Each structure stands twice: as C-alpha cells, then as structure tokens.
C-alpha cells in the first residue's frame, strides 16, 4: 500500500512516519462547533525527537490524539505509517495503533492489580502473540528500561519512575515507529523525571523510534532536536521549518517569546540535541529569543491579549521564559 507514496518522493527523502496535511479537528459541543485544530501540517520522520509545546488549550492534546490514531481529523489528510486514517474503519485504526504507535501518558495508565510484565505484554495480547512469547518479549523490554528485577511487581508496589518505565516498556514492546509521550515526566519529581527523559532519549537514539513528546517543561523541550509550538489550534513555530513559522501573522507568536527559542537555528538536530552543552539549552535559547525581542516590543498593543498565555509561560517555569519577560516588562 505504501509503495506509490514512496515512488512519489524525490530520491533520498525518507518515508515519513506520520504526515499531516492541513489537518483540522472540530468538536461539536452542545451544538456549538469548537475548532481545536485549524489546519496543521507537519511531518514526523523515523528517528525524530520532537517536543510539542504550547499553552493549555492550544490543541497539543488533540494533535497528539490524531497523530496516535486515537481520533480522526475532520479536515485535511493524515497518513500514519503510510495509511490514510480517513480511509480506516475503527478496527483497522486499532490495528494501526497497535503496529505503529506507542503511547506514554503522564498518569502512566498501567492496569492495577496486574504485574509489570503483564502490563508490558498487553499490546501483544491484541496482536495474537502466544502467552509464552509475550512474557519473553515483555521481560526483555523491561530489562531494557532497567526493570529486569521488577517483572512480577504490581504498579502499587513500584515508584512513579518505575511505573513510567513500565509504561515506556509497554509502548515499545510492539516495536512501533513512533512513540507519543504526553508529558511523560509531568507526574515525576525532577530527578526521576530526568532519568525517565534520558531513557526515552536513549531508546530514541538506539532503536530509531520517533519520539514525539508533549511537554510544559522548557528544559525538557530544549533537549528535543525539534520543537513544534502550538497556539490556538495552529502550529506557530516548527524548528524543522523555521520559515514556515514566519509565514504566520506576527500577532500569533506574540507574548510567546520562549517558544521561539530554537527558531534562529537552521539545523535543529545539531543546534540542541546531544551536544555537550545541551542541559543549558534553556538559557541559550533565551538568548536567541532576546535577540528577537525588539520586534515584540515594537508591538506593545498585543501585550494585554497575551497576558493570559503569559500565565502559561510562567507556569511552565522555564528559565528562558522568565528572562524574556523581564525585558518585556521593562518596556
């Protein structure tokens, strides 16, 4: 099925793991249409490491659900693993999720009263893998996430970090092409969160699974090779395509200076990523944003409107966000 798509591409270009073209998602709530996504286009390549950032209500979660095949777009074209989502019936969507997507949730979502190895083996159940093989593969996967000694522990017998490792093992046991992580460190303390993040990065580097991560944490976002910023249902910045971000009306990116951090970088993978200085990426990004500051200050009329999203920036607590706000407030 994917053959024609491959043939259409210029030689050398990779087959995208996920391709969204002008995707929109409208909800009907009590007869009122709510546009959660308004024409999002993006491509996730195998092995990508993408941070998806944006304030609450910006459409991050909706986009994640679409990218994970949990939901369908109401407009546009969404191709996951070479298959057009709009052409798939619910059972086929389930199979598609099982084969190509791994989910990691903020709240872990492990089955209670079920051992770690059985939790990890769960996706294989729906793939028809035999019980013995399931256990073998789940145990091996738990070993890879450093929980080889915790096979028969139940979620309530494990720490938060361990539970999230189990969830990561579950997401990867099917060897998916994309790992979608929705604030994977959101329920963890900073030390545990950092360890979980390192694990995700390591798995991304080792196995070539694309890692798409929703996060509010600027430090976390700064470590990604690519950052996609959303607001009001559209992508306002994508570090993989810096120019496309400029194509948007300027007013859209106001007051979110922190989200513009990696924009000046032309080559995202080398700019942040696993370079020696990457833990300080937050402050480095802030410096880049500060360079763009004059444009923001030139449009003071936009500031009141941005007061609300500014809250979100403050809550995200990134060092860069505060540094940017300081000069903005001075003006």
């Amino acid at each position, binding site marked *: 099925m994917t053959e024609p798509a491959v043939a259409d591409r210029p030689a050398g270009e990779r087959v995208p793991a996920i391709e969204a073209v002008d995707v929109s998602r409208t909800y009907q709530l009590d007869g009122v249409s709510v546009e959660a996504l308004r024409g999002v286009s993006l491509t996730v390549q195998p092995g990508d490491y993408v941070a998806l950032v944006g304030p609450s209500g910006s459409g991050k979660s909706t986009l994640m*659900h679409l990218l994970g095949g949990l939901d369908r777009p109401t407009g546009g074209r969404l191709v996951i693993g070479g298959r057009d989502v709009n052409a798939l019936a619910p059972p086929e969507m*389930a199979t598609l999720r*099982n084969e190509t997507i791994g989910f990691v949730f903020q709240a872990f*979502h492990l089955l209670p009263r079920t051992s770690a190895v059985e939790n990890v083996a*769960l*996706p294989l159940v729906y793939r028809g893998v035999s019980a013995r093989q399931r256990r073998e593969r789940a145990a091996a996967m738990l070993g890879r996430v450093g929980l080889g000694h915790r096979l028969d522990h139940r979620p309530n017998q494990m720490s938060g970090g361990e539970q999230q490792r189990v969830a990561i093992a579950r997401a990867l046991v*099917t060897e998916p092409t994309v790992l979608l992580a929705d604030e994977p460190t959101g329920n963890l303390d900073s030390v545990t969160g950092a360890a979980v993040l390192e694990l995700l990065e390591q798995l991304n580097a080792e196995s070539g699974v694309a890692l798409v991560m929703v996060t509010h944490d600027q430090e976390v976002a700064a470590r990604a090779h690519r950052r996609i910023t959303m607001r009001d249902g559209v992508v306002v910045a994508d570090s993989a395509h810096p120019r496309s971000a400029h194509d948007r009306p300027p007013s859209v990116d106001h007051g979110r200076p922190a989200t513009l951090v990696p924009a000046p970088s032309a080559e995202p993978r080398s700019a942040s990523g696993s370079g020696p200085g990457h833990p300080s990426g937050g402050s480095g990004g802030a410096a880049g944003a500060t360079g763009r500051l004059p444009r923001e200050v030139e449009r003071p009329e936009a500031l009141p409107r941005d007061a609300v999203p500014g809250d979100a920036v403050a809550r995200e607590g990134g060092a860069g966000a505060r540094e940017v706000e300081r000069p903005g407030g001075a003006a």
Partner: protein
Amino acid sequence: MRVAEAWRVALDALRANRLRSALTMLGVIIGVASVVLLVAIGTGTKQKVEQQVEGLGSNLLLVVPGRIEVGNAPVVSPLTLKDVDAVTRVVGDPDRVAVTVASGATARAGARSDFTTVQGVLETTPAVFTRSLARGRYLTGTDVDTSRRVAVLGDSVAHALFPDRDPLGQQVALAGVRFRVIGVFAPLGQSLGVDRDDEVHVPVTAAQRLWGTQRVDGIAVKAPDRERIDELGERIVAELNRRHPDTEFSAVTQQQILGVLGDILGVLTGVLAAIAGISLLVGGVGVSNIMLVSVRERTREIGLRKAVGARPRDIGVQFLLEAVLLTTIGGLTGMALGVGTALLVDALSPIPAAITWWSLALAFGVSAVVGIVFGVVPAQRAGRLDPVVALRTE
C-alpha cells in the same frame, strides 16, 4: 485477541473485584437455586404421589357409582354385597375383588379415644391393595361371613389408643360397639397431607350392621393383566348398569388417576418454576446493572486497551464474557446450592424433593442466556467508547 485469552482477561477482571463479583452472582445463585429446589419439590411430590397410587397394587380397577369428573357431587351408592357377588362372577376370581364401606367413627379404648375412619372390607383387601401387617393377623373369610366383631388397626390409631400397651387382644369400642383387636397394619405414612395410617378395618358385614345399612361404597378389582383391564372395566360397568339402570358407574384405572394427578402436579411444578424464574430474571438485571457500573468504572482501562490496539470487538467480547462468566459461575453455584438444599429438604422434612436433570440443564442454560442478554448492552457500550474520552476520564 484469541478466545482463550479473552476468557482469561474476563476471569482476571472478576477476580480483581471479588466482593462485587460475588454479590452480583448472588442474584443468579438464588435464582438458579430456587428454580432447582422448587422444581425438585414439585417433581418429588409428583413422584411420591405416583408411587403411592402405584403402591395401592398393580392393575387396579376402582368401580364406584357416579361419574369421575371434577365438580361432580358424590353419589350415594346403590351397591350391595349382592352386586359384589355379581362383579365377582364377572371377574371370575373372588380373591381379586375387594370392597369398602367407610364412615368416620370414634374409637375408644379405656380413657383414650381417636376419631378415625372405619372401613368395612372383605378378607381380600391385603392381596388387592398390597397392604402388610406389623403384628397379628388380618380378617378371614370366616370373620366376614360371621360378622365377627374383630378389627385391624392402622398404625396411627394403634399408637393413639394403645401408646404403652400391646393392642393385640385388647377391646376397642367403635361407635360404641366393642371390637377385639386382632392385627395392626405396617405404617404407610402421609399422602397429600392425609394420614394413611388413620383407619380401622373391620368385616364389611359387621360394619353394615354397625351402621344399619346394606350399602357398599365401592368395589376394587385387581385385573389379571394390564392389557385386558379396560375391557374388564367395561364388562363390570355393563353388569352394574344392568342391575341398577338408574345409576351411572365408573371404572377407573391407576393410570387414569395418575394422569389426572400428574396434570395437576405438573401445573403446580410449572408455577413454582415460573416464580423461581422471575427471581433468576431479577438476578440477570442485577448483572446488567453491575456490568454498566463496571464499564463506567473501568473507562480508563478501556481507553488504554484501545490505545494499545484493542479493537471495539475485543473490548465488547471481554465485557460480554465477564457477564457470561458471572452468570454461569453463579448458575453452577446456584445449581450446587439448589441440589444441596433439595437433598436436605428431602432428608430432613416430610416434603419430598427429587432432582431432575432437565431442571438443572434449564436453570444453567437460562443463566447463561441471561448473561448474554444482559451483558450485551454494557459490552456494546464499552466497545463503542471513544478512546480519547476514555483516557481523559479520571
């Protein structure tokens, strides 16, 4: 997902909620147990009555005046011992003919008294009705021919009048006339609430003299074989009609009696089973209710399962199997409980109970069907759940 896997998942879910699963099953358990128990009691009663009717003796033909139909008033018998002689000629064997003339009377012995039924009979009664004695002897032809005032007591009467003495040889006053006790029947027990040991047999001639009558209430004939029993009955009825043109006579066989009683008791059993079935239905509604609660409670689990690749059908099957497991495990437990209770009732109380395979099969089948019927709606609901909404639920 494989079927075996689905069963395991469903069983795990039930195990995870032991108390709730048990309480849900309780409705089904009670329903199935009551179906099994009540059908057992109905069947046991029917069987016991049949045994008793058959225990009267085999190939029995009861000849009575009047027509045997529900709603017909009893007819005063025009029969006498002369008619009995005529019937005996038709039958051709005096040993096969028994008679009765019966009336309530007070029996006294010393200071003790007991109101009982006094039956005037021929010496042939034990042979025709298969009665046996515990002590002494039965009436003889001479006793009948000479209207001797001798009596054979039923077990209850013997105990009432002679609780601490051997009744043999003692005097007993029947309706004020003294009779000598020559025998005591072996106990027969109860039948349809009637104490069959509450009777006294005396020679029919003595009884007729006691009450100043020539009457015989009914004639019983033991037919030589089953094939000719109807034909024999017709010949007897024809002879009696010839002798008493103004009266109708009926000859009924045990099979006819059993047929009528069986119909009545069958209806009774059916009504009992229907009442029990209603409780089974209520149990099914309980299952449905709990499954709906379970679907709501495990919304996040459903969302997660869908996220990792469960198809709507996988989820639906899982919840349907849970409902079916609830009702079938409940059904099996209910069957065990019903059988156990029925055996206890049969052993410890005068109520007879007999387990029938069809009631077990029916109760189990109905409980399984109840599980499917009442599990479908919750299962569909679970299967259709939107994974996005399900995962967001806290």
